[in-house]
């Protein structure tokens, strides 16, 4: 019996080595492992043995069965793996199936980032019309009729007293007309200027206006808010300066500059050799404006600021022609 077991084991080992296909392996299985195969047949012959040696022989037989089974399993795994890799022998350097890629316009990206920062600082969003009346666009903002300050903003007119807003500041008036202080809003939107179209100016652009009116709002606070914005937007190591300027609806008025991030302040073409980049205009809400919306200027004060989104986007991405933002060339849009 022992010899028989050893013989089968050897035969199986020799034979398995010659197996190359799954079909051949099946023959192997039938010959050794299947119900009528050599190993089960040996098990059957166990009962013909003397009961004293049966357990020992049984143990040997079990070993044999495990060994043959393992030979079979290993071979099967190896063959299947081979077969699998043969199927996959397709050229894997072929490109994958790509999906479409969408893009967000750089103006939207810039605006979204500005909004995100002001949301964190407690500002809400307000909106107003692009077709405005003279009162909201100019008069209520302390631009008297026939005042040279109106020349600062070349205007498209729809009729005598109706125009395309030249800035988002009229939204300030509309918000304050509807709401009592405190007011803390930003007002993004499209504005129009009747200027010749060139690489530096387009007939329309986008602004974000900000307004905060409450008791005890100061210029110092205005600086604080805008510096906090600029540091979040441009990085906390920027340098900044506020210099006096003029807007009819704010007083004192200022322009905020930051160190040119292209030349780090040493002077270049973009900053016109000054080392500084103007990023926004701001100031304390003029008492006449507060009076126009029936706020008591002795009780309330406020600040306002405004920035041009295209300008900021152009500086940020190094775009030197504003018109490209409105051409919507996909080769351009896909860069963002």
């Amino acid at each position, binding site marked *: 019996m022992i010899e028989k077991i050893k013989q089968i084991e050897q035969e199986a080992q020799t034979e398995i080595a010659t197996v190359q296909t799954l079909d051949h392996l099946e023959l192997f299985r039938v010959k050794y492992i299947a119900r009528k195969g050599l190993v089960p047949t040996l098990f059957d012959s166990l009962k013909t043995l003397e009961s004293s040696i049966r357990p020992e022989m049984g143990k040997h037989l079990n070993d044999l069965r495990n060994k043959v089974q393992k030979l079979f399993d290993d071979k099967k795994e190896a063959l299947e793996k081979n077969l699998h890799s043969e199927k996959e022998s397709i050229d894997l350097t072929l490109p994958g199936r790509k999906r479409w890629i969408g893009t967000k316009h750089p103006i939207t990206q810039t605006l979204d980032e500005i909004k995100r920062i002001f949301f964190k600082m407690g500002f809400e969003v307000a909106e107003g019309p692009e077709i405005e009346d003279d009162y909201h666009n100019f008069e209520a903002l302390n631009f008297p009729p026939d*005042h040279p300050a109106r020349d600062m903003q070349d205007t498209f*007119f729809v009729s005598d007293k109706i125009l395309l807003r030249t800035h988002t500041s009229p939204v300030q008036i509309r918000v304050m007309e509807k709401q009592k202080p405190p007011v803390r809003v930003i007002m993004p939107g499209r504005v129009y200027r009747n200027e010749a179209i060139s690489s530096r100016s387009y007939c329309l652009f986008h602004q974000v206006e900000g307004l905060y009116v409450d008791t005890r709002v100061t210029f110092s*606070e205005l600086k604080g808010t805008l510096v906090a914005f600029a540091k979040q937007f441009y990085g906390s190591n920027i340098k900044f300066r506020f210099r006096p300027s003029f807007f009819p609806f704010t007083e004192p008025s200022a322009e905020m500059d930051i160190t040119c991030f292209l030349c780090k302040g040493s002077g270049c073409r973009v900053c016109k050799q000054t080392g500084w980049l103007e990023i926004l205009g701001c100031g304390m809400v003029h008492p006449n404006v507060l009076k126009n919306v029936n706020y008591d200027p002795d009780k309330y004060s406020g600040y306002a600021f405004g920035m041009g989104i295209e300008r900021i986007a152009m500086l940020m991405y190094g775009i030197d022609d504003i018109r490209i933002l409105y051409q919507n060339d996909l080769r351009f849009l896909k860069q963002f």
Partner: protein
Amino acid sequence: MRISLNWLKQYVEINQTPEELAHSLTMLGLEVESIERLGDKYNNFFVGKVVNVQKHPKADKLTVCQVDVGEKTLQIVCGAPNIAENQIVAVGLEGAIVPKNQHDPEGKPFQLSKVSLRGTESNGMICSEYELDLGEDKDGILILKINAPIGTPLSKYLDLDDIIFEIGVTPNRPDALSHIGIAREVATIQNKTISLPVTKVIEDTAKISSKVSIKIEDPDNCPRYSARLLTDLKIKSSPEWLKQRLKSIDIRSVNNIVDITNYVMMECGHPLHAFDYDKLEQGMIVIKCAEENQPFITLDHKERKLRKDTLMICDSHKPIAIAGVMGGENSEITKDTKTILLESAYFLPRSIRKTSKHFSLVSDASQRFERGADPNGTIWAINRAAQLIQEIAGGKVLNGIIDVYPKIVEGEKVILRLSKLIEIVGITIPKEMVIEILSKLSIKVIDISRRENDDTIIVQTPTFRPDLQLEIDIIEEVARIYGYDNIPVHQASLIKFSENAPIKNQISEMKAHFIGAGMSEIITNSMQTIQTALLSSPHPVQISNPISRDMESLRTSLLPNMLEVIRENIFRGTTLVRLFEFGNIYFNNPYIAGKYLKEYQEVAMLTIGLSGSANRVNWDEKSRFYDIFDIKGEIESFFEKISLDNIKFIPYSTTNALSESDLRIEINSEYIGTIGMIRKDVLKRFGIEQDVVFADIDVDKIIKLADIKKKFMSLSKFPSVIRDIALVVHRTVQMDRIEEVIKQYGSELLRKVELFDRYTGEQIGKDNVSYAFSLEFISSDHTLTQNEVDKVFNNITKKLEQQLKAVIRQ
């Protein structure tokens, strides 16, 4: 405003470098936009002496000159007819940029390099007056004074070592539109005093009053009119120093009289005007408004139709100048002028601005008057001009000034509360410092309260600062001089946040959806031609002063812009486009109330445009072009994303200006938008050779309908049952009708109906269509039994058979 540093130094001591000065001015609100070194224009130009002139061996018109330029003698080929030995000339060396090219029609500058002219080496260029931009003479080289030191840089010889600051003066600061005005600001921050030139006029014994009479008929628009009479003048060109001064700030020299009036205006900011006295009837000046439609020819030889609100300077018979804007041709100074009447007046800013706007006529004078000249500055200016005229043009100044000034204009009296100053600025500036700042600015302190709890200071503003009227104006001045940078950066530790929970920015979320769906956002112009605007609405908003005809209307649809963007992209080689735009369209419909303005409506729209291959080019997929079902699918997915249901797509029967195969989108019977295909003839007009499918959706409406407050709905714990149904119907039965029947009889158990197959073919009869749907049933409170589902399912099949004559296939 161009400000010359050398000129400025006449009034105030300046120790700073030009860059430091520019910074100081900028930080005072007088933004220096550029610094120009005039001398730089003549880098590499020197004074030279022509030591030898020989004929060019190969060219008759050329000479070969040896020119001593100080350190060396150079050979230069010259073409000028007036060249001669021992001349002192201006020589440009290699690298010099010649300001004007005589041989270029526009006179564009060019750079000199070593050249060979007809085989002879030339190491520079002897220049003409024109080439050096010093005058118009092109006929020969410029010959300098014989004693000019050889080898001197030309800029130094010409006294061009000046620096010009281009200052952006804001409209509230007319006082800064002059050299003395800027000097005043420089003195303020540098703790210096300005020194004004002393005006000394030597008057003749003859009196002006015997020759001139002045009457202001409109004292509101002309509060002051001062005049002098100067006789026995010689009109000629101005001396070099005066020409140079004016040239440095870009003012053309005309003659000595006109130049002096311009010089004084640029010196002190007060505009002056000179009339040829002999052309005035009866030596009379009357200031009054014109008659409507009266014609008048201004100095620029243009005829203008006056209006009855145009303030005019007249003699006894006729108008002779548009007050404060421009003189008339009929009283112009000419070379024969002997006697002038010199005007120094103050006009009301509003009146001047109206006139200047009406005639689109802007002059240096009108700019200053409309911003506000100094009513008390007329006398200094007229005396300064009289003195200079006497020095330069000779002649006599008659005794006396006629000064009509019925009501003296005084500076504004303003109460400044220090508490308000603190409240606005945010820090305490000591009272003494405030008073010091005010005095530096010539703001007179007329009273300081000594009472307790009273922090007021009463001040009077100088009349050259018309922008200072209110307390806030004084506060700004104090802050400006104190320095904005010295005001600390402070942010309140407690920010007031809104009481309302933030409303999600829905547009942002929608944009994110389309970007995720592989589309690119575009942003386009909101102005278009009226023809384009009329394609989509009979009520476009028209612009009365458009930049050009292609922008005379506001857009009434985003589609035309979309088509243009598609065309441009295809033209540039990008033929696969998936685009969307969120933007407003505008109407002027008198019958609809706008949200903000009566008669004007603004509607937020979303437009999508798809064109080209519907799938990305792939090596194992067949490409096909977009059709209506692609755009429909995009919109269905979008509505699914924003949880909008009850959507109906209804085929249009009417034709549209731009599109065909349109489907109206309706939600709860309300019109939401359109999807469709752009018509072939429209595509052709736009120059697009591939199909375009589009969607055009009213954003305000979907925002209103979309469920913005997303609430969690508990998920069913029980399994769903899927049943498929296949049926054959006549081809006239539309798919949505089948779906409607299924839904109608699906009971509350039916959750979803999905079409997964559609088939036409001979086997089912050529007039038939076969559909296969998958139906999902579910209950929220128990596991459905086969029986329950069977009941509903059988009812559906029965109704399909009855109502649509459908044949159910097993």
